[in-house]
């Protein structure tokens, strides 16, 4: 172990390694390439050996197997990470900005009285200091943040680094914690899966996506009409689901579905990183938003600065008119 090591929390969600884990390995390698030290992946689960193979880009894979870690609860996860950090004394701890990461990264920083940076999209080393580029204000602003103290707790935005493919030593080490895992005051009870019967937006070739700019529930019907004409389905960004205008099964983004349709027509969606994460793989992205500075125009193929609600009936008519 070395004070230049970088620890990656390789998250397991519902018996699957989270994709962001491989991205974190790349991010960690970008640090150790400059500072020396090893990339160490940490897997917390009931049976970590089955995930170790995919983490071969790490120099070491540390497994902590415990029935209390089979499903996420903050107390046991935090205690386990804290013990490994105390043993490894890494330069940095990288955690994905996921449902779990949003709990663990700030709580770990607080426990360790360590510096933390949220929304990390790039990491460099300058004169021994970590320099983290961080996206905030809905991707409308970037910050260059210097972090001198160790360990730095960095919460990394998914999609910011290419997934690691190269092979390191990947030595697997099973560890046991110094004391039995205490379940603590917050306990996992069960997963609640989405109700079957709604449209599966992950299987659609054409998606008409509505965001805050759709303005009111009644206008979702306009989007449904367009989706019907195009032979697709309607999906949404989080604010629309928060309003109860569409069910959670239609939500695209970090906490919703990941979709890769042939057409993603984004109406009144700003394109915050959390939404982008769920639709950036679409073949063709056409974005409509009245805000010329909406981040979605930075990654859409086509864009238009018009009112989505005004556009919808005109687009239905134009498509029906045929060539």
């Amino acid at each position, binding site marked *: 172990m070395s004070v230049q090591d970088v620890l990656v929390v390789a998250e397991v969600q519902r018996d699957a390694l989270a994709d962001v884990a491989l991205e974190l390995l790349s991010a960690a390698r970008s640090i150790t390439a400059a500072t020396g030290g090893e990339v160490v992946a940490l897997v917390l689960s009931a049976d970590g050996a089955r995930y170790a193979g995919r983490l071969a880009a790490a120099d070491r894979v540390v497994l902590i197997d415990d029935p209390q870690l089979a499903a*996420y609860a903050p107390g046991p996860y935090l205690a386990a990470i804290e013990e490994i950090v105390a043993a490894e004394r890494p330069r940095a701890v990288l955690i994905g900005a996921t*449902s779990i990461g*949003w709990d663990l990264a700030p709580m770990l920083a607080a426990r360790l009285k360590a510096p933390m940076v*949220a929304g990390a999209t790039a990491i460099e080393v300058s004169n021994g200091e970590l320099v983290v580029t961080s996206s905030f204000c809905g991707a409308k602003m970037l910050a260059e943040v210097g972090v001198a103290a160790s360990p730095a707790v960095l919460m990394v935005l998914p999609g910011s680094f290419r997934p690691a493919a190269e092979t390191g030593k990947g030595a697997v080490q099973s560890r046991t914690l110094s004391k039995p895992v205490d379940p603590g005051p917050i306990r996992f009870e069960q997963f*609640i899966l989405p109700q079957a019967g709604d449209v599966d937006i992950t299987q659609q070739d054409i998606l008409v996506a509505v965001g805050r700019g759709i303005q009111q529930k009644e206008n979702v019907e306009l989007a449904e009409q367009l989706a019907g004409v*195009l032979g697709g389905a309607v999906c949404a960004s989080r604010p629309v689901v928060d309003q109860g205008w569409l069910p959670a099964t239609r939500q695209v983004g970090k906490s919703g579905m990941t979709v890769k349709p042939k057409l993603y027509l984004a109406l009144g969606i700003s394109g915050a990183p959390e939404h982008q994460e769920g639709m950036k793989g679409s073949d063709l992205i056409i974005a409509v938003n009245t805000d010329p500075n909406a981040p979605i125009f930075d990654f859409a193929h086509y*864009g238009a600065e018009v*009112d989505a609600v005004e556009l919808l009936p005109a687009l239905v008519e134009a498509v029906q008119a045929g060539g």
Partner: protein
Amino acid sequence: MNIVVVIRQVPDLIEPLEVDSSGTSLDLGSASFIVNESDDHALEQAILLKESHGAKVTVVALDFGEVDNTLYAAAAKGADRIVKVPLDGDPPHPPAAAAMLAEAIKPLGADLVLAGVQAHNELEGVLAPLLASELGLPYVGVIRGVKPGANGGTVVVCKEFPGAVMAQLSVRLPAVLGILGAEQAPRYVPVSRIRAAMKSTQFEEQAVAAPAAEPLVSIRRLYPPAPAARAEMLAGSETEVAARIAAILREKGLVK
């Protein structure tokens, strides 16, 4: 149940954001402010719990920007008590804000503290879990829905995961929850009720000392992102844009 809700003001992203002359901070003087969206959901969740199971709801906020308007709206929605924490200058970074809010919240004897799971301008930490740490309470966030547990002294929460999957967790109180969304959208309150609340609501002030500790990170510069690529923009009226989009879809074979 004694519920405390934390409410913050954040810059409205509809307006352009400016960087101040230091190059390391947002120019808050040129920004307009709105209530942090997930804090608004936290308040709604608290009011729903009050309506369904009985609770006292206290809102705590740092006194900055146009927070009074937000707090009067909170009172109109059903908050029982409003506590403002005076600020000297701009809002502090999340670790310092957490320390200040914790000092104000400790005397309130909360069973449950609800705060938005995030604010879009958080960079050096995340308020809700840092607040839990300052209060010495357990924390779980990304919560969409809170109900009292079968046993007294607990709540049952739903934590959101990708794929519209929820994890149901039991939380022993007292605790802090980071709310992503309430069980229903934040309610609309008519202006007339807000005006009535302005006449009837007395804000309390709870002065606390600003933390002396220096920030653990240094912001070297802020800047708007330069796009790596830019969409090909379709100009014209809605009708003209519609015709262009329909033509593109035909070219790509996506419609006949």
